[in-house]
């Protein structure tokens, strides 16, 4: 089938839920990251030919059948709350705006499971469950906007993962539309297996519905610790992480970040520096008491760690979905988010501060411990996207941050388009080959979200990318007056 004919049929089928007007389509050419057009436009065709908002799974299936027949790229999108162009077309085609596939389909309070439309946001689900004395086991820090299917399509680690594991471990069944339009209910034992689709970034199929495990909504207890000594606060973090009562949430903030918060007037209890460690527990009264004793003992046994006020601890928890609040000091932010071994946190932060001194730049770091071994760590700096040249030079510094993470066993969290130059850091050769085999098996025509995850585009191949970034770093260094 001709591409134009397929597009026409899809447009006719989805009627008022399809549009090809430039006014609407233009807003689907971006995600959170404001990448300058002069970098994007020569390399990719981000403008979709058509945006469609399917109302049910059958419609998704029909669209994929036609798209496959016409060889039209399809990019799924819901919250679009990522920064790597995961949900932005690289080759035009169709954007499937899945936001109509939302809402709770079934709640089983006895078995503690809920079945939801994939575009239901975590915020919606949390609100729905909390009103019934229940809660999601874990949520992303972008819960108000991130969809459940979207987080599954990413790596699915965030708030609550330390205690309850990744989202993949909580999903029992996922309804998925494969690239040829076939609708399947996938489980850990099906072929293909459910786990193929976790972190597949919408490249293997479109998740339309999920059944996930939930938990009882227990009381919580919040602590916020402060110390001028990175080593000591890291020691408390490690001890709390491995203690008998698992924290629900473990979030740290480095000195540069605390200083930036102070400058913006949003630092807890008015602290002007030092490191922060937020520890949040949920559980029975007995568990909360035991948790409190654990934290009390650790603080009592330290030289410099102190408690901030309970009000500040609660406020920190209440603000957990507003990690962008520091952006006000920018107005733009650039940074690198890494999947870092927890044991390397101190050495990573020490090297980041050395990098900051070399670059004469404030590098602010914060993150969540999401498993006994790993933390998701964001190191960011302020920028101004209206100063395009400086902003592009700033983009080159993101690689420097990733390089530091790599030296400490870390790699970018999520791939999308912009992290494809780091594929060899993110995956072993055999793992990448396995992923490419899956793609070839399920989507041989490369219809779903092409250009992402498996292979770098020509201009982003690691060699060109490294040379280009290094040149920009040096130009930036010269502009700053000689810092390394």
């Amino acid at each position, binding site marked *: 089938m001709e591409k134009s004919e397929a597009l026409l049929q899809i447009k006719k089928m989805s009627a008022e839920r399809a549009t090809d007007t430039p006014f609407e389509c233009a807003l*689907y050419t971006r995600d959170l990251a404001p990448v300058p057009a002069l970098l994007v436009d020569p390399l990719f065709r981000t403008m979709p030919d058509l945006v469609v908002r399917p109302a049910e799974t059958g419609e998704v299936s029909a669209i994929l059948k036609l798209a496959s027949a016409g060889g039209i790229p399809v990019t799924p999108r819901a919250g679009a709350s990522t920064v790597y162009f995961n949900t932005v077309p690289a080759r035009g085609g169709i954007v499937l705006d899945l936001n109509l596939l939302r809402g709770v389909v079934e709640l089983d309070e006895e078995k503690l499971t809920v079945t939801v439309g994939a575009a239901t946001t975590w915020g919606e689900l949390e609100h729905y469950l909390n009103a019934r004395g229940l809660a999601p086991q874990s949520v992303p820090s972008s819960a108000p906007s991130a969809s459940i299917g979207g987080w599954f399509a990413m790596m699915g680690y965030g708030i609550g993962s330390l205690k309850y594991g990744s989202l993949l471990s909580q999903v029992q069944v996922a309804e998925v539309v494969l690239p040829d339009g076939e609708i399947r209910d996938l489980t850990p034992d099906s072929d293909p297996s459910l786990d193929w689709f976790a972190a597949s970034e919408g490249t293997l199929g479109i998740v339309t519905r999920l059944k996930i495990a939930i938990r009882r909504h227990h009381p919580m207890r919040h602590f916020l610790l402060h110390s001028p000594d990175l080593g000591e606060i890291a020691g408390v973090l490690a001890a709390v992480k491995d203690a008998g009562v698992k924290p629900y949430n473990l979030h740290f903030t480095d000195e540069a970040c605390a200083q930036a918060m102070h400058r913006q007037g949003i630092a807890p209890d008015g602290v002007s520096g030092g490191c922060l460690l937020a520890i949040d527990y949920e559980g029975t009264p007995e568990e909360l008491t035991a948790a409190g004793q654990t934290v009390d003992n650790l603080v009592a046994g330290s030289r410099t760690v102190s408690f901030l006020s309970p009000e500040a601890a609660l406020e920190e928890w209440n603000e957990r979905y507003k990690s962008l609040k520091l952006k006000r000091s920018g107005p733009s932010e650039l940074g690198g988010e890494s999947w870092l071994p927890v044991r390397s946190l101190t050495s990573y932060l020490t090297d980041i501060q050395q990098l900051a001194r070399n670059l004469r730049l404030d590098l602010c770091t914060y993150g969540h411990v999401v498993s006994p071994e790993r933390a998701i760590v964001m190191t960011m700096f302020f920028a101004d996207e209206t100063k395009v040249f400086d902003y592009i030079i700033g983009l080159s510094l993101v690689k420097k941050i990733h390089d530091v993470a790599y030296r400490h066993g870390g790699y970018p969290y999520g791939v999308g388009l912009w992290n494809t130059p780091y594929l060899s850091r993110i995956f072993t050769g055999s793992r990448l080959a396995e992923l490419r085999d899956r793609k070839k098996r399920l989507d041989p025509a490369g219809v779903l979200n092409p250009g992402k995850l498996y292979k770098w585009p020509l201009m982003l191949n690691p060699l060109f990318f490294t040379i280009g970034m290094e040149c920009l770093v040096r130009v930036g260094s010269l502009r700053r007056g000689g810092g390394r």
Partner: protein
Amino acid sequence: MMAMDDQKLLAELERETLVCGRCGNCRSACPVYRAVGWESASPRGKISLAKEIFTKGRRNFLTGDYVRRVAQCTLCGACARDCATGIDTRSLWLELRRRLSRSGQEPKAYDSIRDNLLARKNVSTFDNEDRLEWAQDLDEEPEHLDRQEGADVCYFVGCVSAFFPQAAQIPLAVSQLLMKAGVDFTTLGGEEWCCGFPLLSTGFVDDAREFARHNVAMVKELGIHTLIASCASCYHVWKHDYQEDLAGYDLEILHTSEYLARLIREGRLKPQPLEEVVTYHDPCDLGRNGGVFEAPREIIGSIPGVSFVELEHNRAESLCCGGGGNLQSVDPELSAEIARFRVEEIAATGATVVVSACQQCEQILGAAVRKAGRPIRVLDVSELLLESVE
């Protein structure tokens, strides 16, 4: 905004569009996005386009489609509540509308609203001298209803209550309650001009300022020191946007729910039993944008026999009724669709009465309840209280 420095806002809009992180928290909260579904209807979409137009100077993005989207907003403030970067989006929407109006690109419906207001000083087609027509339905008209100098309380009735028969029950109830409590109260009568909110929200800020000056001058002339408003938007404007004109003048501004709750606490009103299952819809301008959550609940809670049930989204989380921001004037179907969402939630409570504290909410929800065929009465909190003290 009348109380804000114009130049400051002009500069701030450009910066705020850059501060927006496009995270989409606002989109999840937005009733308009929920009803329309396109990214261009989401707050982050509108801010993205504002960045292109005003910050990057790409005027080709300023199209009729964009103007329509800017007008498709109830100013409910849910986006501001959830904004991860702390943008005062409500002010930003007002500033966008002001820019459209200043450049002559506002929707035609905005011009009609302005022309009518400038001509009549109210949002209806009636002469402003008829502002107290509603009082003819009182069994006994209060002695000093029209511009009584030195009255203890001035009741700012609001255009909708004064001129639209379906909302007239509100001033009738408020007046009867004040009389029962023995309150010495008056109104501005034919000298009450629209509070100016419809002008503010259509971007005609300078005109709104004139209305504010007039109303403040009238209050000062009568020597009024306590003003109550039953319209949530009037209350919000008096409380927040009139402050520059009120500087140095001692005026207590209360919503009628706050004042009536006070009268109950003082024992001047004594609610009697009512057998009803009641829920409460927080008006955006009174609750989320005005910070008044407890007074209406205190009134409902003071009525013996009432079984009160909260809506799933309440207080600062309340869902808009669809009637704010002049949306009803520019897109009545969209306004009705937003109201439909709210009525579904109201019906799910099993309440026999939904109470609000805003004439616009009452009107919008009343129409939506009738359209849905739900056996639910829609009342202002003053009407419910009156039922219990009669």
